[in-house]
């Protein structure tokens, strides 16, 4: 039955090519625009660490002075050196890492490559295990090296390819900022999207090229990347104080019970700091999970949401348009449908036949929409924004494209098909 209806549909679609083309084009444009924006949103609002994100938390404390205080204010988005170090040493979480963004001047041994600056992450060792960072060669540095200014470095795959042609470079020496560092590990390809652990260096920036122990980098006064917020007499000259927030502190808490215990710990810590006269404000802490943190930080640009709504509005207009055109098309064929009804076809089968025709339009429109979405995403990738390179269609979105196209067109076909099949056959036959 379906095959026959499909044949009928193709015949009917071929009969009025302009009208068919118009319907297919409208569906394709609407689907193409919607799928392009949906894919961008899907990529941008994804979970950077699907296996781990539920266990990762981002503590926030409020060490600021009383200037500009108002009730209900959110604590700063980063922690100070002092708080970060205190929390790190307390070690109350299953894993914890204190980190900041930076830059290092890399001076390659071969003179073939000019010196260049590379984005770096200065961090304590749990960064790698907590974020499930994959290693291609070697391993992270150890606990002892975190504390004793060790001149060690972990390279990203990209930098290892650039400097060492992708071979195992562990054990070799790399000169950075005028000092020698021993390479202990090389990462496998790793780019969490969004760049959740430090949003101050860009919501969707690439992962850093080199990873150094935090204390080593700070003591060598390597350049800093990110944002700093100081108050009172906090000066940027001495960052090892409690008067500037500029670092990110992440913890892994394996169970919800541990998370609530940790939150209580943060409150107790704040009260203690207040009673010591270090904090001036009442305890004001947050312990957001990774996805909550991304949501709170509004990482997805509002333009992307705006584009999605615009595209969906466009799709609705295209569908209304298709409903109108299909109505015209189906009603024009009332004579033919009258013949079918008179020969014994039930209303249901005429209805089914017309819906198959609508679905066919949707399928062809979906193919067109897919092509347009591929084109649209290519266009998005040409844009200079730092998330541009991520805009690729994946399998679920590919399936969603066809599902959306066919189901939208079927919905659009309901009214015209119903109108056409409720017409009484006799007058149609007479008119014909």
């Amino acid at each position: 039955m379906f095959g026959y209806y499909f044949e009928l549909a193709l015949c009917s679609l071929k009969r009025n090519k302009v009208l068919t083309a118009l319907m297919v084009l409208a569906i394709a444009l609407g689907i193409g625009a919607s799928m392009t924006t949906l894919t961008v949103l899907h990529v941008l609002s994804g979970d950077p660490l699907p296996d781990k994100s539920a266990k990762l938390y981002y503590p926030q404390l409020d060490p600021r002075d009383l200037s500009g205080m108002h009730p209900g204010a959110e604590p700063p988005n980063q922690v100070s050196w002092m708080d970060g170090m205190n929390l790190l040493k307390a070690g109350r979480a299953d894993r914890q890492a204190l980190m900041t963004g930076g830059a290092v001047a890399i001076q390659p041994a071969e003179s073939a490559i000019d010196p260049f600056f590379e984005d770096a992450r200065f961090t304590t060792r749990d960064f790698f295990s907590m974020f499930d960072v994959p290693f291609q060669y070697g391993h992270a540095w150890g606990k002892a090296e975190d504390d004793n200014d060790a001149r060690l470095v972990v390279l990203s795959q990209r930098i290892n390819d650039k400097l060492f042609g992708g071979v195992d470079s562990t054990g070799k020496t790399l000169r950075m900022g005028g000092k020698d560092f021993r390479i202990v590990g090389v990462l496998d390809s790793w780019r969490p999207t969004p760049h959740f652990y430090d949003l101050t260096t860009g919501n969707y920036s690439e992962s850093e090229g080199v990873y150094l122990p935090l204390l080593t980098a700070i003591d060598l006064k390597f350049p800093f990347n990110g944002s700093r917020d100081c108050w009172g007499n906090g000066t940027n000259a001495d960052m090892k104080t409690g008067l500037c927030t500029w670092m990110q502190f992440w913890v892994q808490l394996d169970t919800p019970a541990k998370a609530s215990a940790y939150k209580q710990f943060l409150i107790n810590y704040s009260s203690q700091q207040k009673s010591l006269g270090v904090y001036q404000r009442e305890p004001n802490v947050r312990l957001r999970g990774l996805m909550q943190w991304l949501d709170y930080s509004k990482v997805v640009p509002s333009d992307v949401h705006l584009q999605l709504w615009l595209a969906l509005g466009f799709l609705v207009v295209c569908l209304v348009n298709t409903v109108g055109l299909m109505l015209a098309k189906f009603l024009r064929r009332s004579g033919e449908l009258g013949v079918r009804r008179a020969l014994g076809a039930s209303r249901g089968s005429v209805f089914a036949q017309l819906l198959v025709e609508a679905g066919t339009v949707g399928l062809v429109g979906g193919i067109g929409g897919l092509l347009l979405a591929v084109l649209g995403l290519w266009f998005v990738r040409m844009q200079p924004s730092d998330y541009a390179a991520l805009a690729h269609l994946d399998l679920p979105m590919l399936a969603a494209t066809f599902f959306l196209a066919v189901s939208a067109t079927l919905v659009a076909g309901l009214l015209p098909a119903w109108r056409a099949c409720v017409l009484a056959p006799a007058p149609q036959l007479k008119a014909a």
Partner: protein
Amino acid sequence: MQISPILSALRHHKAGTALIAMQIALTLAIVCNTLFIIQQRVAHLSRPSGIDEAHLLRIQNQWVGQHGDYAPLLAADLATLRHVPGVVDAYATNSVPLSGGGWSTGLGLKPSQNGPTAMTAIYFADDHTLPTLGVKLVAGRNFRADEISDMPALSKPTPPFVIITRALASKLYPHGDALGKSVYVAPDKPSTIIGVVRRLQAPWTGNFAASFSDNSTLVPFRLITNGTNFVLRVRTGQMGNVMRTAPKALYAANRMRVIPDDDGVMPFSAIRAKAYASDRGMAILMAVICVMLLAITAAGIVGLTSFWVGQRRKQIGVRRALGATRGDILSYFLTENLLIGMGGVLLGIALAIGLNLWMVTRFEMQHLSLWYVLAGAVALLLLGQGAVFAPALRASRVPPVEATRSV
């Protein structure tokens, strides 16, 4: 033209009529709002930076493998750059307008004030800054060469005096008497305002700095750090040459530096394009969507009206046989479309305003000006008339003899 027969005919085509009206309404609602967004984006990206962008070039420099005293290196580099043929003047700074990164701070009128009076961008400047940028003083004077002191990286600036923009001056001292007054950049030491410039935009173009985008403060410091921005004023027509020769001159003077390949040497035209790329992209996307929407709506009207004309050939023939002229038939379809269009437009105006109100709460949008709605309404009515014209003309050509045929 009699309207009642048209209305009674439309009553037989409720679904089609409703669909056309709805499509016009939705299109109007979306088109008004997108046009409004386009206008906002264009206004945003065409706001003046206050500097003579056509003649300016930025070079980003970072020292490699050097530690400690950058001051003589900086002075030597500036001397080198000022002698490059085609360069009029040059200075070094932490940041420039439109660059997207810089230093913001709150300014107070009293020592250790609770909460700032105004937010501002901080630009490190010397006596060459104003002539290089082509920024005009409207009151007071420029810094003198002997007033510029060195400031190590990451320390807190306590400038003895500052030059501020007019926008910032009127925010701090609304009576227009900022010159000679004090302002607190550091919480405890006052800075005297010695000059006011017409306009100098802050480095940020995003929402973050929307409330203080024209508030800038120039402080008389050389930032002594391993990374700096050189700003060069280039003679007309020499931009291409200087872009090649200036980095070469710097490398010739000292090789231990990095000038990034991608954005190390950028004329301000490119910095501007980069700063507003997303706004421009958004405006273009909106415009494309608008045009497609109007085209789809027009195509929909043509399609449905053609169907109606085909369906009513016999009736048209009867009317023609009874003495209706071609003009009568033409104006029948035009009026019919106008009636549907007006219904759609009325609904569309309500939708447009509703959509805008929703976007105001959701996307920090401003309230839609009614002129956009009215202009959109007129445009859609005209579009409808244009779209219906071809099918209506075909209808008017239906010969009276059609009345006698059964098909």
